[in-house]
């Protein structure tokens, strides 16, 4: 046992370090990932320790980063690309959805593209435009990509390594306002869950909250408040957005009869819509109330001083829980 306390950002870095140590085909690529250690310092010291052939500062070109990494993957490498911020992935969108995602299908399984694409995402850090977006729905809508997001340091540490080990391309979303959250975990223990399993973080009997990434701690504090009011909430962290671990969600909903899905991304056609639809199909007779969604509004991410209105907080989650319980 070697239990360590680490922030989520440092845990991603520690996971990357393990992956670099274990497999010489793992390379890290991105803007400012080398000397600077990334603008969030996630890759801090990696270039110093592994050299600039393994930790590669690239030109300022997102399409270039993903397209070149794809080429390296064709040559047997396992590139881990960093996109500096969510809003800058769009120049690379074509490479990701048209090329990377489709190669396995196109070649009838003869070619894999084991890329991991790390994207710090989401708001709540008071940033300027294009630095706070939640673009996950664009990627989960694309067949061929796996999409995951950890919400705590322990998961971050294991999930980044599991993503790198995946023979499918993985879009790895890092909830940037949780980068500085710390937790203790065992860096030598094997991961306790496969990459695509959801985690029941808190058991409850009156309603289920399903969420992921940055909203997980919000949901946990909502559940703590609800408990004082006499309501028992179950909280599920999806962790994987494609595929989604529906059996875990279904089990919970069969028990509680009520479901609220929460995320930062805009509600219309967001992840919550898919979860609501599937659960309504599969648990219709166990549901005591319609599945409710709490998400961002259907607006461009607002200026920093207004972002707290856009981001679901514990009060908005509890309001939805109340509506569900009242139904």
């Amino acid at each position, binding site marked *: 046992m070697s239990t360590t306390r680490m922030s989520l950002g440092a845990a991603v870095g520690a996971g990357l370090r393990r992956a670099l140590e274990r497999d010489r085909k793992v390379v890290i690529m991105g*803007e400012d990932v080398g000397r600077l250690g990334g603008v969030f310092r996630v890759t801090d010291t990696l270039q110093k320790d592994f050299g600039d052939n393994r930790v590669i500062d*690239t030109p300022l070109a997102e399409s270039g980063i993903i397209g070149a990494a794809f080429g390296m993957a064709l040559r047997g490498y396992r590139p881990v690309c960093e996109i500096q911020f969510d809003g800058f992935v769009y*120049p690379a969108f074509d490479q990701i959805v048209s090329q990377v995602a489709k190669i396995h299908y196109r070649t009838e399984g003869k070619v894999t593209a084991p890329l991991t694409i790390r994207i710090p995402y989401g708001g709540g850090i008071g940033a*300027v435009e294009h630095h706070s977006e939640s673009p996950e729905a664009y990627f989960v809508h694309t067949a061929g990509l796996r999409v995951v997001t950890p919400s705590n340091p322990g998961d971050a540490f294991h999930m980044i390594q599991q993503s790198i080990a995946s023979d499918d391309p993985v879009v790895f979303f890092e909830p940037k306002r949780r980068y500085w959250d710390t937790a203790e975990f065992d860096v030598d223990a094997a991961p306790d869950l496969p990459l695509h399993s959801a985690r029941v973080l808190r058991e409850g009997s009156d309603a289920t909250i399903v969420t992921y990434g940055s909203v997980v701690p919000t949901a946990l504090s909502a559940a703590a408040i609800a408990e004082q009011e006499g309501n028992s909430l179950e909280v599920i962290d999806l962790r994987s957005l494609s595929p989604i671990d529906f059996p875990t969600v279904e089990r919970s909903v069969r028990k509680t009869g009520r479901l609220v899905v929460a995320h930062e991304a805009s509600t219309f056609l967001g992840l919550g819509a898919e979860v609501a639809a599937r659960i309504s199909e599969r648990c219709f007779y166990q549901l005591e109330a319609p599945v409710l969604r709490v998400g961002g*509004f259907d*607006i461009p991410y607002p*200026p920093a001083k207004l972002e707290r*209105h*856009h981001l679901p907080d514990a009060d908005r989650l509890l309001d939805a829980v109340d509506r569900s319980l009242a139904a």
Partner: protein
Amino acid sequence: MVDKIAYPVQLLQPDGRRVLRPEYTNLVRDIGPDELRALYEDLVVTRRIDVEATALQRQGELGLWAPMLGQEAAQVGSARALRPDDYAFVSYREHAVAYCRGVDPAEMTRMWRGTAHSGWDPHAVKVTNPAIVVGSQGLHATGYAMGAHLDGAEIATIAYFGDGATSQGDIAEALGFSMSFNAPVVFFCQNNQWAISEPVHLQSPVPIAQRAAGYGMPAVRVDGNDVLAVLAVTRQATQRAREGSGPTFIEAITYRMGPHTTSDDPTRYRSSAETAEWKARDPIDRMHRLLDWEGLLDGAFLTRVRTTADEIAARLRSGAVGAPTPPPLSVFDHVYASEHPLLEEERAEYAAYLAAVTDTEEALS
């Protein structure tokens, strides 16, 4: 111009003495004592704007700021070459361009404070709101210039971007488009040597301006810390644009003296010796020395410049400090130009939610 690419145009040496290059000095023949003093004032005022905003960020009034310290001459020289009808497409660092175009200092910090995504009406001052997605503005400038060309308007469009931006597909595509359509656009690259932590040679092994040659575009390199030289080459390029001779690429060689933004720590990636070397080429010191050589500095003038800088800084400060946060429901404004039922529904729901929360809070207090 193409063959001059290896020799950056310079009209002022770092010690303030003039350089005689008739081809370029002719372009600034009208810059007499008053105009020189006005340029000096612009440099001082814009540095003051930058220093004031940086201080405001440190005091917690702004969420972020991208300092332009050291790049004043590149920005002032190029912006003062523009005519009122020309249109400037800028990135997040062009505070001096904004100032020269007439953006109200009280509005300059809105985006950085986080109360708005824009800050000013771009059409009113003919300068865009800052482009955050690196390189995107190069194509916008090209399209605007194409429109102006089709309209037969005799104006120039100018796109400002950094050395890092030249690695973006958008800039490459802009160079291609503008040549295909002979668009009256000037590509103004401020090569400040760094793209956050990445040195310019990571973006290009050859001088940035050489990239233009592959598109058949004339290019010129200029000492970006020499306000007169920048004025001259930008006048030449905008003139070419206005008379229908197509695009020009300018590489202004300068240096970002401060951090990339107020969140950045440049000591992690560059040496203090390098910064010191560039300090000796400071654009304001250089102008100061020239004015001194030419007997144009006197106490009254310097006091006037300082007073102007103080006034503008005060205006910027009062515009930023305590600038109100817009009301919550304003997040639903302007998403679409006409009504949208989904948003109307969300607005109504959120208004009801806020009212209920307020009622509860009042009941509890």
